């Protein structure tokens, strides 16, 4: 006879669950509406999704920091709040990109399920970042990923199907590695709670050589899983193909949200090792990060398609972030979130600009949707679009005073600080490698600027920005404004992020 368990509702602290619940309930609501009347227009669903995301942002913002809930599975620390806010904001910018001029051309948005799946995915990412239980991380990861594969496939072009299958295969592999890594860690410590694991590792001491080998095994398996999801060398091969196949906004979204969620998980897991001063782990991450950014930069140089170029560039940005992750200082961790917040507006904007130039047929190249030639002489055809895209490119290259400059500045500064504080020259070398990579990256961003501003327009009567509509213009305008005016809000943003990150002890 089992003892009856008595759980008081108070001790569950359900409020910590509210952000995810809002997304899930919203998704169910959309499905229910569809059940009753299936002729409703996508505009309704877009607006509903946006409203739900608004409420979600409110709920996330009003969470009490550093509370646990739901049998201690959920952890609402600063890390989770700040990453959820970035995820939700990115989603909020992503959803209205569905409001293209024509209803027929991109029919994935005609299905209400698209928006329901989208909200499920958001909930999955939220679970992933707001727990330190390895199992719940896995559940969140899989919920989000499975929804994401479907969303990619719903774009319904041949490339999209290929992309979805490719991403699914790689994602399944990553999930497998994640599980194996969790098993290794569980076998070592007997716990799946990261804070327990940290305690046990600390008490055992990191020097025991018997422990080192299996522990490193766990780290390596985890790093493979993270590498697949964040697209680090040598697990980055899928990225350009998947981005090319999916719709432009989806590619932009994928370059931010899934990566950020996984970076938070990596921060929680590897943070333990880095705090224990196990240097092998941070060296491993740094080496991978440097190879990632250098190699992908080289690849980006030779791309003929803007979208593939942006895919490689997002890999190199991921390498940047991972280099800071290996340091484990509060400033480095805050800089990661600042970087992602700034990267989000710029990169989503750049992909949105590709989105409004999307055509059903490939008019400009046999293989690619967005060859560089397509944007030749944009400055004389549609000057405003050229200027905005130019600003996004300059921001990605890190030219002041646009938004990503501040992210880059703070991130490199955190590396330099670490170098001076530990008096290790190799971190100065890391900082120099990072800036040299920024300089290489400037070339391919500039290439698009050169095409747009300095070359003669193509003699073609195809309208490049055929997919334009007023809502899309508004979204792009907002993103551009946020990119340009970053100098005015970087101070409060930095303060907010630093407060949240340091309050959760990272």
């Amino acid at each position: 006879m089992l003892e009856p368990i008595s759980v008081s509702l108070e001790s569950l602290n359900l409020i910590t669950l509210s952000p995810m619940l809002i997304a899930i309930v919203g998704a169910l609501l959309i499905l229910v509406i569809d059940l009753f009347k299936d002729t409703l227009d996508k505009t309704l669903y877009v607006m509903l999704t946006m409203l739900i995301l608004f409420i979600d942002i409110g709920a996330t913002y009003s969470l009490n920091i550093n509370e646990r809930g739901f049998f201690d599975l959920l952890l609402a620390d600063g890390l989770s709040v700040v990453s959820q806010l970035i995820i939700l904001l990115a989603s909020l910018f992503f959803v209205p990109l569905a409001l293209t001029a024509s209803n027929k051309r991109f029919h994935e948005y005609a299905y209400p399920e698209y928006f329901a799946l989208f909200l499920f995915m958001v909930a999955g990412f939220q679970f992933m970042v707001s727990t330190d239980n390895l199992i719940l991380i896995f559940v969140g990861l899989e919920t989000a990923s499975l929804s994401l594969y479907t969303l990619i496939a719903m774009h319904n072009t041949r490339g999209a199907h290929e992309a979805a299958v490719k991403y699914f295969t790689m994602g399944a592999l990553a999930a497998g590695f994640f599980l194996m890594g969790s098993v290794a860690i569980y076998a070592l410590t007997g716990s799946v709670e990261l804070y327990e694991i940290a305690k046990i590792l600390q008490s055992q001491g990191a020097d025991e050589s018997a422990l080192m080998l299996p522990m490193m095994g766990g780290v390596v398996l985890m790093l493979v899983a993270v590498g697949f999801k964040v697209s680090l060398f040598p697990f980055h091969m899928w990225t350009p193909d998947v981005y090319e196949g999916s719709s432009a906004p989806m590619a932009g979204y994928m370059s931010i949200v899934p990566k950020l969620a996984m970076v938070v998980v990596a921060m929680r897991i590897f943070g333990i090792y880095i705090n224990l001063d196990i240097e092998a782990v941070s060296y491993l991450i740094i080496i991978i990060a440097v190879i990632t950014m250098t190699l992908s930069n080289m690849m980006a140089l030779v791309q003929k398609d803007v979208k593939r170029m942006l895919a490689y560039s997002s890999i190199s940005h991921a390498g940047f972030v991972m280099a800071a992750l290996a340091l484990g200082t509060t400033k480095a961790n805050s800089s990661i979130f600042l970087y992602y917040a700034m990267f989000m507006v710029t990169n989503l904007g750049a992909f949105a600009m590709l989105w409004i130039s999307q055509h059903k047929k490939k008019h400009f190249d046999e293989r690619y949707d967005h060859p560089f030639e397509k944007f030749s002489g944009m400055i004389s055809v549609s000057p405003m679009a050229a200027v905005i895209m130019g600003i996004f490119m300059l921001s990605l290259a890190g030219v002041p005073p646009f938004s990503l400059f501040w992210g880059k500045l703070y991130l490199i500064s955190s590396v330099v600080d670490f170098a001076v504080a530990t008096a290790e020259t190799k971190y100065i070398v890391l900082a120099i490698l990072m800036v040299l990579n920024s300089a290489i990256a400037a070339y391919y961003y500039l290439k698009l600027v050169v095409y747009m501003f300095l070359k003669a327009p193509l003699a073609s009567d195809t309208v490049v920005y055929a997919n334009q509509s007023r809502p899309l213009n508004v979204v792009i305008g907002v993103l551009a404004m946020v990119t340009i005016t970053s100098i005015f809000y970087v101070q409060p943003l930095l303060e907010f992020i630093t407060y949240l990150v340091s309050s959760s002890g990272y």
Partner: protein
Amino acid sequence: MDGILTILLFFPLLAGLLGFVVNKDSIRAYGIAVASIEFLLSLWLWMSFDVTHAGFQFVENIPLVSDFGISYYVGVDGISLFIIIMATLMTLIGIIALNIKKDIKNLIITLLFLEVAMVGVFISLDAILFYLFWEFSLVPMLYIIGAWGGERRLYAAIKFFLYTFTGSLIMLVGMLYVAYVYHSVSGSWSFAITDWYALILPLDVEKWLFWAFFLGFAIKVPMFPFHTWLPYAHGQAPTVGSVILAAVLLKMGTYGFIRFSLPMFPDASVLYITPVAILAIIMIIYTAMVAYAQEDMKQTIAYSSVSHMGVIIIGTFAMNAEGITGSVFLMLSHGIVSGALFLLVGSIYDRRHTKLMSEFGGLASVMPKYAVIYGIMLMASVGLPLTIGFVGEYLSLAGFYKISPIMTVLAGTSIILGAVYMLNLYKRSFFGPVTHEANATLNDLDGKELAALVPLVLIVVWLGVYPKPVLVPIDNSVKALTSFMHEKAQTRVAKATIVVSKKNKEMK
């Protein structure tokens, strides 16, 4: 008037934005009007400048990112004041002489944005603000070279951008390093260079930082062996682009040495006088020889401009008041003279659509006014006494004589070699019979071109004969700088090398 620097900085920005509204046909007049107002504002700055005071004036300090110590911190002293005036003057002259019809509206607006960046660099007293304008100045210049340039303009534009961008990113690492050191010493973040001046760094740290900053500045100057982007940029840029590039953008590098490297790293600067001077001498002699070998008139002037930048570097690293004052003055004279020479080459190019010297000959008899102005500018460039070029070159070399007489002699060959290639250019293009039919009917300078060039001629002669009004404020600030460096220097060698003038001024 406390906010004058802010007005000076944001007026062209505002005017540039409003310029989008102005009609295409009226934009040139608009550009001239705005640039004149900006120039008058900078003159007003000079009028209200207290010449007896050596420190920074018109200081404004508003925190921007206070958690990270970044602030809107601006001010001018004698060193930056005249460079700002030169920047606004050369922009005005460049716009007056503008002879481009294609997309002129975009060009004028770009020039105004470029003016913001130029003024911004020279008034910034916050390293990040400085960096911000420094990098931002690349974007309009990239557009000017790339959109209105010659055959290989794209290659030249990208090369220009990437070279400078790479160097300045390394410099950014150096800045972040200093900021962290400051943070660990004082407990608060600050990028204000006046705070950084007070920081005494360990010698080996200073050495590394010196090279980090050196790379950023040297590529901009451009020093040998980083000079290869400049001939391309000049060769392809439109006239107005070359004028601004030679007159102002290159000065950012040498200004950076004086504003950052010398006062922040006095020991390292003294330590590395010899390698830097050797690079500068190679630059002077080698590029002068290359200039002699050029067939293209504009390339000759481009290389001569690199050669003269070497003398500025020599003066800067003389570590005494004469040398540094001379180098600042040479920056001004080089800006005016090379700007004028590029304008002159531009106006002959507009007439003949060629810049090859072999295409010309006997121009003096066809275009007398042109030949006279060209001759005056040539003499000023060579450094003839009673022209503006002499003062700076003489002071720079005299200053460096105290460091090393032999190297000064080598650097002094710039005057001889300069005379060789410049007179050769003049002989081949202006004297002798008119060899080409097409040259016989060329028109002399028109009103627009005279309006741009005559003021420059007047300045060349005026400051050549009577440089005192400009030299005194520069000298005050430089003396304060050297005495500050002398006090800050830690090694005995550095203390001995940095010569303090008798008339000391306190530096703030």
